[in-house]
């Protein structure tokens, strides 16, 4: 059985239109309305408040000056032709892949650079090869 307080909460949370009430609460509320004069008074007051607020808060027509400003948006900001946008969209994954490859190369360069011994003779191929091979020399590969 729904209490008057629960009914008031229902009205304030969902509004006075029974179609907006959850089905289970709808049945209980309708039973309460049939049996309680207080509930009916509450329901009528909620409907009046709702009608008043709907009318009072309805948006005023748009100010013509603002409307004129809005109408300039398409002219001031011409859209990119659709074909160009399609091509750009198709190229986007390649652009990301290229950027990722470039970033990975830079990072790899820093890593290798940091691992080179300061005194290493970079003109000597064996010094560089020993960085990559040969764990005994701290190389990257086994």
């Amino acid at each position, binding site marked *: 059985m729904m209490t008057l307080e629960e009914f008031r*909460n229902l009205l*304030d*949370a*969902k*509004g006075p239109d029974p179609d*907006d009430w959850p089905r289970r609460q709808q049945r209980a509320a309708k039973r309460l309305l049939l049996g309680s004069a207080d509930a009916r*008074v*509450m329901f*009528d*007051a909620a409907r*009046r*408040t709702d009608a*008043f*607020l*709907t009318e*009072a*808060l*309805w*948006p*005023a*027509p*748009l*100010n013509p000056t*603002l*409307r004129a*400003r*809005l*109408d300039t*948006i*398409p*002219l001031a*900001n*011409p*859209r990119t*032709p*659709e074909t160009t*946008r399609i091509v750009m969209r198709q190229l986007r994954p390649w652009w990301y892949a290229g950027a990722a490859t470039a970033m990975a190369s830079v990072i790899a360069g820093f890593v290798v650079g940091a691992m080179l011994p300061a005194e290493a003779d970079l003109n000597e191929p064996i010094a560089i090869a020993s960085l990559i091979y040969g764990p005994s020399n701290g190389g990257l590969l086994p």
Partner: protein
Amino acid sequence: MDEREDDDSLLAQIVSGDRHAFGRLMDRHADRVFALARSVIGSAADAEDVTQDVFLAVWRTAEDWRPGKARFTTWLYRVTLNRSLNHKNRVAGRQMPLDAVAEPEDPAPDPGEALDAARRRERIDRAMADLPESQRTAMTLTYTVGLGNAEAAAAMEISVKAFEALLVRARRKLREILGRETLGGEA
């Protein structure tokens, strides 16, 4: 016609540079985007800047929209909210400009009715201004923008339960502020 399908098809036309489709999309949503921005920021002039910024984003990023994944309006009002809050935070501390006062309503044929409407609007604007920002946003998304609880919660990036808790507090506070005189009967 289903509004969601319609927004999606308008966006598809915008992608091919259709200015008229963009105009129709603005016809549908610009007044609410502006109203939402204004309820967060308070200043009409700043809300106009945010509205322009939001529709510029729609125009520029229409091709990124994936139909069927979510409602366009959820995205639109979420972007509006985020940009309004960013804007508000940027200008925080600055004195509220004079143009924060409500735009005058279009004149109605009956001056008495127009006066009543203006008074009522002023009263509700003051009552809304007294609400904490999150509650005011919840009320604006519900009554001004016309979103259901689930979509409004998604626009605010909170759970439906949290959104409904904001609505409960906001409705009670408004009843307290506006009182019996405005709402009539048991307020």
